[in-house]
């Protein structure tokens, strides 16, 4: 395009210098690292006040406990980036969690090979979860139903579906090869922690490096503009809800594997709130168009640490709820202040 190179560059083009005064710089710092600061102060508090906190076990314990939330919250981050929300994650966890044992326990159809049974138990539930996500995306893109309502359908019905699979009964089992995903170790690291790390890295990479990541943000930021720029907005959204479904499915299977049992009524209850809170505390606006993947991870860590801190220090559940609320507000407020300087 030779024309461009000959085009005159006007006097006012090009970057302008950026200066921040001390106060603004502090605010910006607080915003960027506010959640980190909250996290650090929580750590410090624990080191000083919580008995037996400084231990290797504490670390692995918290990592294993936070793993499922983080996995689900990664999907939630993407969904929120497209301007949506996914209330159905808990129910999808229940569906995947209910299906898996049914498969290797031969409750659906007898599967001749044991290995095949376990292999199917590890994959079919994810397909079901993907289907749930696809259904959400379908309602949202085909009928233009608002995400909060569209996913409310599965939020209500999904758990019931899971319960009808299991006839409302608890499925207990002992199947080490399947339970590896919840109880196994690789080089001394719990498998679920490895799963979490992989999911986080993949999501981070997706958002930061891939064209799809950019498209997600564009769709969330201005769907009309995205479409006119040649992005298949509906397709992107459907894909994201499928991803969210699959991640919820993984989390559901991990939970079931840890517990030697699947309880369709309980697996993943309130997970949607935990995941959304992690996203918000992590600094992603719920209005879409942005995704702070590592922020979400940090947000989940903060909430996990709050939980163990309160538990270990004997704060009753009721009071813990109030403290948790205050911390969420504080963290999000720190972020939003820095946005506005």
């Amino acid at each position, binding site marked *: 395009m030779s024309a461009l190179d000959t085009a005159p560059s006007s006097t006012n083009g*090009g*970057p302008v210098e950026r200066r921040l005064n001390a106060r603004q710089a502090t605010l910006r710092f607080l915003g960027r690292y506010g959640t980190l600061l909250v996290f650090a102060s929580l750590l410090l508090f624990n080191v000083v006040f919580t008995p037996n906190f400084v231990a290797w076990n504490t670390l692995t314990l918290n990592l294993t406990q936070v793993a499922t939330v983080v996995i689900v919250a990664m999907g939630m981050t993407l969904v929120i980036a497209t301007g949506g929300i996914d209330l159905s994650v808990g129910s999808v966890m229940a569906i995947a969690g209910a299906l898996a044992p049914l498969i290797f326990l031969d409750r659906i159809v007898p599967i001749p090979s044991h290995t095949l049974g376990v292999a199917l138990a590890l994959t079919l539930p994810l397909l079901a979860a993907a289907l749930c996500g696809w259904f959400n995306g379908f309602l949202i893109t085909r009928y233009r139903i608002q995400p909060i309502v569209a996913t409310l359908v599965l939020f209500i019905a999904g758990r019931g579906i899971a319960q009808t699979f299991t006839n409302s009964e608890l499925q207990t089992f002992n199947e080490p090869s399947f339970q590896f995903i919840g109880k196994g170790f690789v080089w001394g690291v719990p498998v679920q922690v490895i799963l979490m790390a992989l999911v986080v890295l993949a999501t981070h990479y997706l958002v930061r490096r891939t064209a799809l990541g950019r498209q997600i943000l564009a769709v969330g*930021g201005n769907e009309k503009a*995205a479409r006119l720029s040649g992005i298949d907005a509906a397709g992107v959204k459907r894909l994201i809800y499928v991803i969210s479904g699959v991640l919820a499915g993984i989390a559901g299977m991990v939970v079931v594997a840890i517990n030697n049992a699947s309880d369709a009524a309980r697996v993943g209850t309130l997970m949607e709130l935990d995941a959304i809170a992690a996203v918000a505390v992590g600094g992603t606006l719920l209005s879409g168009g942005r995704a702070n993947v590592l922020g979400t991870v940090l947000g989940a860590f903060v909430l996990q640490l709050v939980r163990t801190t309160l538990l270990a220090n004997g704060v009753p559940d009721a009071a813990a709820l109030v403290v948790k609320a205050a911390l969420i507000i504080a963290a999000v407020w720190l972020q939003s202040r820095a946005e506005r300087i």
Partner: protein
Amino acid sequence: MLLSMKDINKSFSGVSVLRDASLEVAPGEVMALIGQNGAGKSTMIKILTGAYRKDSGSIQFDGTQVDFSAPAGAQAAGIATVYQELNLAPHRTVAENIFLSREPRRWGLLDRRRMRAEASRVLARFKLELDVDRPLEDFSAATRQMVAIARGVTQNARLVIMDEPTSSLDEREVGVLFDTIRTLKADGVSTLFVSHRLSELYAVCDRVTIMRDGRTIGQHPMSEISRVELVRSMLGRELTAFATRAKDEARGSDLPVFLHAEDLHAGTRVRGVSLQVRRGEIAGLAGLLGAGRTETARLIFGADPRDGGRVAVEGRETSYREPVDAIRDGIGLVSEDRKVEGIVPELSVRENMTLAILPKLRVGGVVDRTRERAIVDRFIKALGVKCSSPEQPIRELSGGNQQKVLLARWLCTDPNLLIVDEPTRGIDVGAKAEILKLLRELADDGLSVLMISSELEELMAAADHVTVLSDGQSVAVLAADELSEERLMTEMAHQNEIGSEGARAA
């Protein structure tokens, strides 16, 4: 002085946008405010009305020191404002939009009948006959702008501010607006008028304040400053002349036809449009507001479904169902409404610019950052986009600079055909000349351009031929040598005497 703003400073995220800027408006005066895109005009206005808070400086209005913390305060004090990017409340009715925040009441209840009647009366002053009970979103950008102006001038204010009110209006509507401004003046109401169209300033303004890079450069009576001087002090340099090139030469019927559209139909807005764009030419598309130009462009681009007609690209029949199909054939569309259909506000200048080229920047699903960066740097420089860095969110850019980024979004795809819908809307004279020149040069390099514009001057200067739409139908194709303002006007008004949207909608 009615208004006097002194030594105003303002910076966003450490970038200083206003530096000791000042502005004065006398009672009953029409003051023009001009400056390049990003000079700080809108920011100055927003600081006055309390939409932004100033960092330092003083504001006197009507003899008292003021510092409004929200637009409501300025409104109460007698300052009515028509903002540049304001779209009012789209789901509310026309009448409600005009009277929001000062609804007529009866016993404390909303007096709907009076509101309706007064709204119709006010609009009649603007030669608009609308169904005032219909939501604002049902109407075109021009009508919405007129409603916003009507809202502003009926507030019984001492000062009416209009930030680029004419950018989406046609000549007739501009005339109506000017009459209104003169009436206001006769009533002793002052007006602050922002526009990039110099002829408008000379038509209606008494004095002009010139801003450059956040500073006030000068203040002159309109009659004492020539266009050339005005432009020079505004740009800080001479205007790059946009050569009205000799239009004959290579451009003839021997060029291969790139786009051929025949008898397009869609809904009630497009009812038989045919047009042709040859390779390497700029085809103009003229028409009054609501003539169906935007809709035609969207049809061709695959953004809206087509009810009938044929579109052929390079002789091949096409049936685009989504914009992406058109993009694959090397077609781009710079849409008319930058805020709603153009920018992705949260994304950076870089990300906005490369949105349409993503498929080409993708290597195994991953964006090639080095190439991306190179492209972005090149276009920022080539188009003179004023931003603190390519990483600045586009929402922080001034309107004109946003428009440049959007143009760059398509130019970097190296398109065969670029459809530009009001490409210079809200763009300063300097940049405007540059953009037109750029389009011309690109056309010379083989790009086909379909240019929709409400500015006849612009069409005449740039287009190789102009298709005129009237009421959803193509009524004439004028070759370069047939182009004249009168001729265009005559064709545009063709079987369209009504002009009021309400009449047609009813």
